């Protein structure tokens, strides 16, 4: 079976500075992989490289998504193939209603896959159903995307988009940052509902607490741009107790 995501010996530079340094990772369908690590280890860089953000130069290695080389693809082509990134800092887009944004994104992906676009009423019905489960006030859907949203609202909105777009690989970048415990629970429940045998997750986090709610199958420790240790969910607990100091020393 072809893994859902296969990263081989990935080297990445940003502005001439080396951030990822021979990273290997394999994620199978149906699995949740947590990526933990100290600040500056390259966690966010990994998420951006997967999504295709400009400015991140891959100097070596490859990334296969369902066996396909995604590094050559435009960000929107990756998205249409089912790669989703939940941003640590979701962007605000003034004047664009959240629902308009959702509709534009949803239909853009369908168009790229050669699928028929969904009518506005059908789409609204889907969005409303998902929103209700995420405790999202329908009024929020009319507000400009993320403008004036609280931290919790922004992350719930990311989860809403993820649920609507039904990606095959979800990359969550520090989804717990800026969330109080109640909001964290709502978002985590939203993510857990999306777990399925067909879908894989890469959950990037600095802290263990998110993993109490989204329980991973595999935990990786990322330090100085590569995976330095891999284990089960108990590894996260161990890290909570010992901290990252040993890995930083090891990498240096």
């Amino acid at each position, binding site marked *: 079976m072809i893994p859902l995501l296969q990263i081989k010996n990935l080297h990445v530079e940003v502005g001439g500075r080396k951030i990822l340094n021979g990273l290997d990772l394999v994620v199978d369908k149906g699995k949740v992989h947590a990526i933990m690590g100290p600040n500056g280890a390259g966690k966010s860089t990994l998420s951006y490289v997967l999504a295709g953000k400009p400015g991140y130069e891959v100097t070596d290695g490859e990334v296969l998504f369902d066996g396909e080389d995604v590094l050559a693809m435009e960000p929107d082509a990756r*998205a249409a193939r089912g790669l989703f990134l939940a941003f640590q800092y979701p*962007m605000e887009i*003034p004047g*664009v209603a959240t629902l308009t944004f959702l509709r*534009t994104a949803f*239909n853009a992906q369908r168009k790229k896959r050669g699928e028929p*676009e969904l009518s506005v009423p059908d789409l609204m019905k889907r969005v409303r159903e998902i929103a209700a489960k995420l405790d999202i006030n329908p009024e929020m859907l009319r507000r400009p995307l993320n403008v004036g949203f609280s931290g919790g609202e922004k992350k719930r909105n990311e989860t809403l988009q993820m649920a609507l777009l039904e990606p095959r690989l979800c990359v969550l970048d520090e989804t717990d940052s800026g969330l109080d415990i109640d909001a964290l629970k709502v978002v985590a429940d939203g993510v857990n509902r999306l777990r399925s045998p067909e879908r894989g997750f890469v959950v990037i986090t600095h802290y263990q607490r998110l993993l109490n709610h989204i329980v991973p199958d595999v935990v990786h420790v990322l330090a100085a741009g590569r995976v330095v240790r891999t284990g089960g969910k108990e590894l996260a607990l161990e890290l909570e107790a010992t901290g990252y100091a040993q890995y930083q020393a090891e990498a240096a």
Partner: protein
Amino acid sequence: MPAVQETVEQVRSIDVDQYKYGFVTDIESEKAPKGLSEDIVRFISAKKSEPEWMLAWRLDAYRRWLTMKEPTWARVDYPSIDYQDLYYYAAPKTKAAPKSLDEIDPEILKTYEKLGIPLREQELLAGVVREEGSDTGGSRVAVDAVFDSVSVATTFKAELAKAGVIFCPISEALRDHPDLVRKYLGTVVPTSDNYFATLNSAVFSDGSFVYVPEGVRCPMELSTYFRINEQKTGQFERTLIIADKGSYVSYLEGCTAPRRDENQLHAAVVELIVLDDAEIKYSTVQNWYPGDAEGKGGIFNFVTKRGDCRGKNAKISWTQVETGSAITWKYPSCILRGDNSRGEFYSIAISNGRQQVDSGTKMIHLGRNTSSRIISKGIAAGRSQNTYRGLVSAHARATGTRNFTNCDSLLIGPHCGAHTVPYIEAKNSSTVFEHEATTSKISDEMLFYCRQRGMSAEEATALVVNGFVKDVLQQLPMEFAVEAQKLIAISLEGSVG
């Protein structure tokens, strides 16, 4: 919300070719010889079978024009225009005056269909969609299509006539309603007004005339589609709209032109007259050929648009979406003469490639307690230059006047420029003028966020820009909002990535 959904679907179905309206319709046209002289002015007047006073008016303008100089104060740069190297009159040949759309040259109908303006369909739609007298706003549009210089199709005439509204080519108005035309023509933009307006006065070939009688609310949106088709044909449209006491009319103007290599001159004049308690809403979507990526070709658009709130409580609202033309020189303005009158200007000006836009408005407060509002959204991409130039002035007598101005500029890419040049004059102490301005850049982060959700660079830009201009887009009638959204997407193609 069927209309909204239709809008969305139409926008979705946009063909994203580069300037896709660049085609030429093959119709024999009847031209006056090249160049400008008294004889040409007489030729045009004779072609239109105009009354003697009209010829005298034109000749007076022509003689005045000879003494004038082309203005140079705008922030635009273009090669000098050889006024003797242009045609001043071209008309599609028709057998006789058309009685219905069936008699219109199918080539012309085809052209409009390519542009997404199927007259037939509009006529049909309008017949079916709404019940008589229903006032839920929306999809009824009367179209007076201007093909090159002569109006070739007029629909909805009967229904308008029932309401007492006159909507016809100005040449026809000169024949059928000469007293009305004579009473109002040139009273807002006099023949001596400015170089281009004076030229227009001498040689205008056609345009639209609207008269809404006292107390009448025009039963439908009025619309004119201009289209420049004949090579080297100067376009000199003249529009005159009069809203008599207590009346209301919404007028839509939209333009697209086929691709041409040579620069084409367009110098239109629009005059609005609004009497006591009346209102005119005038909306424009302009999409003329902007020239190629190097700035070759494209329309020179020198337009004088002005409205006069001649009575108390009169109101004028200008809304414009400017995406085309190589050079745009355009300042739709309001003279707020009547006490308590109100002027509004909502503008979206998009420039890309090597386009140069110098546009804005003048709000001239003469009456007491007059108010005005200006919302201008300039978007510059490519190597274009986009200038907002505005004047807000209050006369010494105009006590209690108010203005609010908001000018926002959005820059896309590192090679374009946005400029804001507001002139503000308050000659009495009870005037309150407010001015806000911002300039921002469309951020890579924002685009990446949209692209991560599946949008192409173009779709992402269009979405962000549509958000930026939303306040203005909302002012447009639904029919035009569709076209405007299309144009925004089309005109920004190639501006990112």
